[in-house]
């Protein structure tokens, strides 16, 4: 058990390519922190620096109370689960699990005890004598987890561990990882590009963009109050609708002047599809509602809900509206959508940062 503390961590590759541009992050003892971002944002590099697989160009990484910058991966008291599982193909499952313990010259009865405990916890007991090549993807994933578990490390590091699994198994393993982490209370740092994984697993979500932290917060915090346009569009599916607002408001959207006035600086307004609703012509709208005149471009039926995509009369970005159930709207139909004014997010058009309305 340990906290992990990153202070102004940078990674510069030869040729002056800066992959991580000064990240400071505090991971409390026992918490589950997820690093999320698009590919190339530096999240894996950051994780590998914590693991000791990548040198740290500047800044410090502390695990527990120790600065580990100069320590070998083996000395950092961490265990890592790799994207491709990295199981030793020539060893049995038992061999894989005990490899790290044997290297540490642990007594054989203690090794046996830990391997059996991990096997029981992950339900891989019957597989102990098999080779990784004889296992399914989900079973390999479990073995990889087991190999991390038996070490009883101060922290678990996960590098996109579920991205090689099929969708159904991914959901199942996701829940299992969460349950295990809760039960063991081991500090965990988890890297993913999948926002759904990030949202469901994290105690604390860290959104990374091109080597910098965009936002840190609880998943709901990040979802409800995205700190920047990047976060707003990255988290949530379909992405938040964005409307650039000029002096003349947004063509095709009618609302109180207060909402659409740029307030001195050019802004971008954001509204999530689920905060919009389709209204009939005759429907009375609430005072303060913004009304969108849309021409339907297409409908995406997910099952429990549908997303209606429409265009504003003067062009501009497409707007998505969430509708419960099955929508039968044909492309070309004219619809009106309404949204409450307090559902809007405001972003500075130049900096992309969130504008906090007093």
């Amino acid at each position, binding site marked *: 058990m340990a906290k992990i503390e990153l202070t102004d961590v940078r990674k510069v590759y030869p040729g002056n390519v800066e992959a991580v541009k000064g990240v400071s992050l505090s991971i409390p003892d026992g918490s589950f922190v997820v690093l999320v971002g698009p590919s190339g944002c530096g999240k894996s590099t950051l994780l590998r620096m914590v693991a000791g*697989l990548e040198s740290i160009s500047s800044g410090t990484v502390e695990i527990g109370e120790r600065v580990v910058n100069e320590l070998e*991966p083996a000395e950092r008291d961490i265990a*890592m689960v790799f994207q491709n599982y990295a199981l*030793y*193909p020539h060893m049995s499952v038992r061999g894989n699990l005990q*490899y790290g313990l044997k290297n540490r010259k642990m007594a054989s009865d203690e090794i046996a005890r830990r391997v059996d405990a991990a096997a029981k916890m992950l339900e891989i007991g019957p597989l102990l004598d098999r080779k990784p090549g004889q296992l399914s993807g989900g079973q390999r994933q479990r073995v990889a987890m087991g190999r991390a578990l038996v070490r009883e490390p101060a922290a678990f590091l996960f590098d996109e561990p579920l991205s090689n699994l099929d969708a159904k198994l991914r959901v199942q393993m996701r829940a299992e990882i969460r349950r295990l982490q809760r039960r063991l209370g081991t500090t965990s740092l988890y890297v993913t590009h999948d926002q759904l994984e990030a949202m469901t697993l994290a105690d604390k979500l860290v959104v990374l963009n091109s080597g910098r932290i965009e936002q840190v917060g609880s998943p709901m915090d990040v979802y409800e109050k995205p700190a920047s346009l990047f976060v707003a569009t990255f988290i949530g599916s379909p992405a938040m609708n964005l409307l650039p607002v000029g002096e003349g408001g947004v063509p095709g959207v009618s609302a109180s002047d207060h909402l659409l006035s740029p307030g001195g600086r050019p802004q971008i307004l954001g509204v999530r599809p689920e905060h919009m609703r389709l209204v009939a012509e005759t429907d009375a709208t609430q005072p303060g509602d913004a009304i969108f005149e849309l021409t339907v471009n297409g409908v995406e039926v997910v099952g429990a809900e549908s997303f209606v995509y429409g265009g504003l009369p003067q062009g501009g970005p497409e707007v998505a509206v969430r509708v419960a159930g099955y929508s039968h709207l044909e492309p070309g139909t004219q619809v009106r959508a309404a949204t409450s004014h307090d559902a809007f997010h405001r972003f500075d058009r130049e900096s992309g940062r969130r504008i906090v309305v007093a």
Partner: protein
Amino acid sequence: MDGRTPFAGTALQKAVFPNKLLPYLLLAPQVAITIVFFYWPASQALYQSMLKEDPFGLKSQFVGLRNFAQVLGDPDYLNSVKVTIVFSVSTAVLAMALALFLATAAEKVVRGKGFYRTMLIWPYAVAPAVAGLLWLFMFNPSMGTFAYLLRSAGYRWNPLLDGDQAMLLVVVAAAWKQISYNFLFFVAALQSVPRSLIEAAAIDGASSTKRFWTIVFPLIAPTTFFLLVVNTVYAFFDTFGIIDAVTGGGPAQATQTLVYKVYNDGFVNLDLGGSAAQSVILMAIVIALTAVQFRYVEKRVHYA
């Protein structure tokens, strides 16, 4: 077909040639080459091994297995078997160990990797006899540069008289030529070991030496096994040129391998029947050796 990939299996089975003759025509060149260069000479050797020629080569007479009895009872031949074993094992082990060492070192080179590799691969382009001559010139007791250095360092270097030194020289020369080939395969094998496995082992607390022997080495075992077969065959058959150029089988038959003896008895001493019997035995030995390697060594090899 292993039956686990039904599509591949059925696709191949359904590829039926409409023309009855075409498949045989397509196979013909390969079959012809094998017949002309292997089956025919091999059967000739087999036939010859049961004949005995008169001293003038005018007529020959059928003697059954007497040639074999004579060869196997000949102390010179048994010495040659011993020499071959020492020579082949030493050459294969030396060539493979050095190549593996160089390949692991090449993995760690950051700058000029391509240059380093190219330089290491070059010796393979040198013909065996030329390689032998190179080493002969370097270590010839009367004019070799290294021989001079060895002697001035107080070492009594004379492979023309000392059988062990002669053996050392041909082993090193033969291994030197094969290192490049082995190096190439080991480099490719090392590159195919996933980096994440080595990283996982590093996190699992294995030192770099331990990582090599417990993770990398077992994973490149298929390549090592392949090279073991190739190197053994090389040491048995393809080193004639080197031995001929460096020692000519001497001194006092100290470097006379089985292949060299076949040549010497057949073409120098003109004992065609005895030479043919030796080559038949040699063929049997190599077939047996390869079979044993596949039967026992390969079982211990993990194919990923």
